[in-house]
């Protein structure tokens, strides 16, 4: 391979390597470490290599550079990438629902309408949280111009809310749960209240991997689906996952993950993750309105549904966890 590697090859993932999957330490990507962990417990070794990143840009750039053939990604970002000609396909969802908008508990904001004139922090322009605000405002006869939207790295949101530097924050978990757990954040809305079955993150793979490493992709999708169902099977599973993910993958306080996964239990859901056209059409419509997509691509272009023949047929992992360690 004499090609100059200096500016990256065209997403040519090296086939010899273990299948790499990028993720961030957020609850939206929880199925990634869960799948890996259960696999290692059951089979002694994982069949893919989860690569943990610390922020969206690096994650995406590593994907674009061809370092890994698959990654969790913001849904609107994945769609926009396809539109920009990046050979990427959404094959499965990361979760449904799963975020919230928090206000300070002492603030006078009780309804979405009260956000008028307030400062609201979102992670970035391509986050679905931002689109969700578009939707929420539109449904109440308001527009984005009625609020002051700022962008901020999610890790800084708790401090910003605590010090009331902003009036409201919204991002992936666990940052929202943290504010609630610490007693100064109050939920203004959970995503399910505004946008039932909300999707924030999706699993994407490169066209190249779909063509050349189909079996790996299929195994990955199956694994994610199985662990999603496993998570939603019992609350014990969620508590178990909180422990091992917090300890081995996220280096967070397990208490925090337990909180996010249980208060309320449907704050975030990991079932029903097959990509559906109507969901994405709704996202796309909002994305066009929000100016992050043109609308030159469609569901069939950016989603490959062929890896999920029948989502309902997939069974959760038959793994009961390492109970003794919980004592």
């Amino acid at each position, binding site marked *: 391979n004499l090609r100059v590697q200096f500016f990256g090859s065209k997403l040519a993932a090296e086939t010899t390597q273990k299948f790499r999957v990028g993720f961030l330490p957020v609850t939206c990507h929880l199925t990634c470490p869960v799948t890996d962990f259960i696999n290692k417990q059951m089979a002694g070794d994982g069949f893919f290599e989860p690569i943990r990143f610390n922020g969206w840009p690096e994650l995406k750039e590593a994907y674009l550079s061809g370092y890994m053939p698959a990654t969790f990604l913001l849904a609107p970002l994945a769609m926009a990438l396809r539109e920009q000609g990046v050979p990427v396909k959404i094959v499965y969802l990361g979760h449904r629902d799963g975020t919230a908008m928090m206000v300070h508990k002492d603030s006078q904001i009780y309804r979405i309408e009260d956000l008028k004139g307030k400062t609201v*922090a979102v992670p970035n322009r391509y986050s679905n949280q931002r689109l969700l605000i578009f939707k929420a405002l539109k449904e109440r006869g308001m527009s984005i111009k009625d609020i002051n939207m700022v962008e901020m790295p999610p890790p800084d949101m708790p401090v910003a809310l605590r010090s009331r530097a902003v009036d409201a924050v919204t991002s992936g978990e666990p940052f929202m749960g943290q504010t609630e757990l610490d007693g100064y954040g109050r939920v203004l809305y959970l995503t399910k209240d505004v946008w039932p079955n909300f999707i924030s993150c999706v699993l994407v793979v490169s066209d190249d991997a779909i063509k050349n490493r189909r079996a790996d992709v299929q195994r990955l999708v199956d694994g994610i689906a199985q662990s999603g169902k496993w998570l939603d099977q019992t609350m014990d599973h969620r508590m178990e996952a909180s422990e091992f993910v917090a300890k081995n993958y996220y280096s967070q306080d397990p208490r925090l993950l337990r909180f996010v996964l249980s208060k309320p239990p449907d704050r975030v859901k990991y079932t029903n993750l097959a990509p559906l056209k109507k969901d994405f059409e709704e996202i796309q419509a909002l994305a066009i309105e929000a100016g992050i997509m043109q609308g030159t691509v469609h569901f069939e272009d950016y989603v490959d549904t062929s890896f999920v023949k029948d989502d309902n047929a997939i069974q959760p992992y038959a793994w009961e966890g390492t109970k003794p360690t919980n004592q």
Partner: protein
Amino acid sequence: MTGKLAWTKIALPLGVAALLLLAWDAAVRVSGSDIFPRPHEVLRGIIQLIEQGLLLKYVVASLFRVTWGFTLAVLIGVPFGLFLGWYGWAFQAFNPMIQMLRPISPIAWIPVAILWFKVTDKAPIFLIFLASVFPIAVSAIAAVQNMQPVYLRAARNFGLTQLQLFRRVILPATLPQIITGIRIALGVAWLVVVAAEMIAVNSGLGYLIIDARNAGKRYDLVVAGMVMIGLIGLVLDLLVRQLEKFDEVRWGYANR
């Protein structure tokens, strides 16, 4: 002579720049990559920013923040550095703290900045200040400590007040070295502008870069932001170097 000088001053760097641009373009083309933008794509990105009226806005916003943060850093760093350089006890007392604080990333300071300054322009200004004040202070301290002994002796001989001593001897004697420190610090101030503009500001060249990195595949805009910062850095450095032409500091420079 002047004709020749002007020629080399303009033509040489332009030649180097042209070569670099060609190399960049060739490298991207040869690699067959479609991720990294080619020079003309970056140019197109800049033009697009101009058309949207964003470029000027972003440049002004970043210049505003850097100017404030950096000016504060100079106003505090130079006197503080001179002071520490001159008074041994002050140096002993505060130098370890300075050496501890200066390698700490502005990113680590972001929570503090938000806590203190909320989501205002003051937060990035604070971060820029923090990153640039230490190089300035360190160079001022070193400059005082390296002053030629004979000037020190002459100065001490005339019974100046402390203020006069600083104003009339220590400052001018150290200025050539301090200007070098200031030039380095100015680069550092811009170096952290991207980190500083992570804080909920919706403008600035740092924001442009963050935003473009967040966007799908807009590396043309990332590079556009880098190019703009580079150009501004070049101009500001030229301006600071004009200081070296003043009679009060010219003594410190060999005749070129």
